[in-house]
């Protein structure tokens, strides 16, 4: 297992380099221009100077090489210096700077990450907590009214996009009923029970919108996987042993059914970071998705490049984690 993991990590290096090249080329081909939002009165020569000051006058392979050096050498050293307080070398290294805000992209991400993790991460956990029991009961009572209702709701949650459910929730619960605020206030600090209650109220809508979407996906997987296992002979064996129905379902069937579901859950984790872009926009959660949308609109290539690369890295990483989990959970799978 260890050699397998190491081998996979080594393979990940060229994969990620290739991904970064693709992202870089796509951004270069995209017609966005960082000076586009500047006033039209600025003469073309000045515009060209601005572009040159951003390094955009260099050919693409040189810019890519510089970006690689900047991202994989300078930024990690900067990070280590920040964390440990130690200093490597005399002069200060350049940072990857956002063209919009003039602040280092890494700092921007560090500021935005907690909001995303809180809101989207909670919604993922809530989604799993809803999905697993629903999937188990739906499969155990296949074609019952509970199963039919669960199928209907998950089809709904699956097929209706979050930008629609999000707005619908705002119209119903904020505008009509006035129960919850429509905007997520990221500056809110929880100090006592009252402020905690405010936090619950403002987080509940984005969490439920995303949670519904995640839960509908995972509960389908859970149900299908449970059904696969419920009709297996070993379940009949377990009943013949005289085990209680609870043990049969929760120990024998559920443990075997969780194998594919756990990998699906692991593969979904990168979406926690990147996939909630639209929902963050709807509820004005200024997380990573919000940052990415703003950066795309402003032609802020360093920010877009860095964020998309981090998403790509997470996807590669969690693919590996899913494969390793499969090996740990299923004794029939051996990688070495």
């Amino acid at each position: 297992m260890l050699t397998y993991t190491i081998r996979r990590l080594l393979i990940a290096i060229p994969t990620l380099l290739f991904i970064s090249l693709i992202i870089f080329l796509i951004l270069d081909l995209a017609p966005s221009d960082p000076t586009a939002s500047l006033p039209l009165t600025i003469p073309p020569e000045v515009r060209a100077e601005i572009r040159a000051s951003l390094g955009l006058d260099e050919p693409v392979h040189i810019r890519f090489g510089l970006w690689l050096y900047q991202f994989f050498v300078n930024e990690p050293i900067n990070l280590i210096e920040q964390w440990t307080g130690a200093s490597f070398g005399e002069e200060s290294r350049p940072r990857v700077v956002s063209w919009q805000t003039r602040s280092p992209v890494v700092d921007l991400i560090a500021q935005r990450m907690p909001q995303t993790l809180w809101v989207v991460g909670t919604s993922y956990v809530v989604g799993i907590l809803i999905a697993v029991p629903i999937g188990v009961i739906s499969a155990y009572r296949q074609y019952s009214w509970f199963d039919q209702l669960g199928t209907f709701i998950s089809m709904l949650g699956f097929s209706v996009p979050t930008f629609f459910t999000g707005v619908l929730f705002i119209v119903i619960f904020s505008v009509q009923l006035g129960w919850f605020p429509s905007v997520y206030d990221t500056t809110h600090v929880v100090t006592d029970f009252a402020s905690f209650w405010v936090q619950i109220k403002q987080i509940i809508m984005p969490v439920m919108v995303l949670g519904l979407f995640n839960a509908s996906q995972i509960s389908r997987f859970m149900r299908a996987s449970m059904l696969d296992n419920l009709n297996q002979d070993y379940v009949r064996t377990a009943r013949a042993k005289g085990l209680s129905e609870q043990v049969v379902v929760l120990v024998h069937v559920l443990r075997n059914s969780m194998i594919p579901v756990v990998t699906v859950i692991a593969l979904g984790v990168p979406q926690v970071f990147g996939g909630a872009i639209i929902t963050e926009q709807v509820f004005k959660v200024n997380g990573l998705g919000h940052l990415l949308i703003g950066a795309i609109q402003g032609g802020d290539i360093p920010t877009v490049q860095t964020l998309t690369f981090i998403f790509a890295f997470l996807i590669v990483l969690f693919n590996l984690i899913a494969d390793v989990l499969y090996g740990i959970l299923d004794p029939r799978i051996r990688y070495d």
Partner: protein
Amino acid sequence: MLDHSDRNKLVSVSGLKMYFPIHTGLMQRHTGDVKAVDDVSFDIFEGETLGLVGESGCGKSTCGRAVLRLYEPTEGSINMGGTEIGKSTPRELRPMRPFMQMVFQDPQASLNPRMTVADIVGEPLQEHTDLKREDRLARIYELMDAVGLNRDFAHRYPHEFSGGQRQRIGIARALALNPKFIVCDEPIAALDVSIQAQVVNLLEDLQKEFGLTYLFISHDLSMVRHIADRVAVMYLGKIVELAPRDGLYDDPKHPYTQALLSAVPEPDPTAHDSAERTILTGDVPSPSNPPQGCNFCTRCPQVLDRCRSEEPEFREVEPGRFAACHRLNE
């Protein structure tokens, strides 16, 4: 062997019916039943092996599972060692499980892939006894010895074994709680011929050693002849003939049994060429829509008029021999 009157009935099944409902249409209304087991009665005496034979889909396995109450029978009574379990709830059945066990057909699928041999064999002990950890392990080793498995394999997973070894695990598991009665549901059908003999011999040895009673379900007539004391022949959900082994194989009474036995391959080439076989024509009717009268009337070579209208009674035609055929009533 013919006279069983002095022996104890261990299992007594009467009027067992197992119907699976068919739901069709937009509203999924109950429109019919698959009559997998349709009014079956038989007794199994203590210490004997009752063979249950028949072609695929005739309801043998369903019958075996229903007897152990792994299904919810539609009707009928099952007397298991003096306890009526035909209508028991799952909760009432659990303490009965140590008495009756099952060996399954597919040894791969019937073992939980995430449990080691020790877990699989030890789980019933954990559930039904209060043995300590060491005692339980000792019992697991004892069972592994009994079925001829190396003790070193106790902590391996089922996929690491061959088919024959897996079936031994299944048998060890079934034996764990000292059952009196074991349903063997085609325990050798998924195995190579060389391994089949080993497993059947193991089953016979264990029967002698522990005084077990078997219901041995198989479609392999020669294997049933080898292991069974009495044989029941099933066709389309019903038992058509039930007789001591030698009587049944030498002088089958029911036309279906005759046809079935004449289909057994003959190893001698000259005898093979001259053998007069009864070749049945047509297909087995659907168990959801069995024919009127005798179930076999659509294919029977000796069919009478009354067979098409009147269902023959399953009755004792000779001492110890039961059959359901109008011809035998004349």
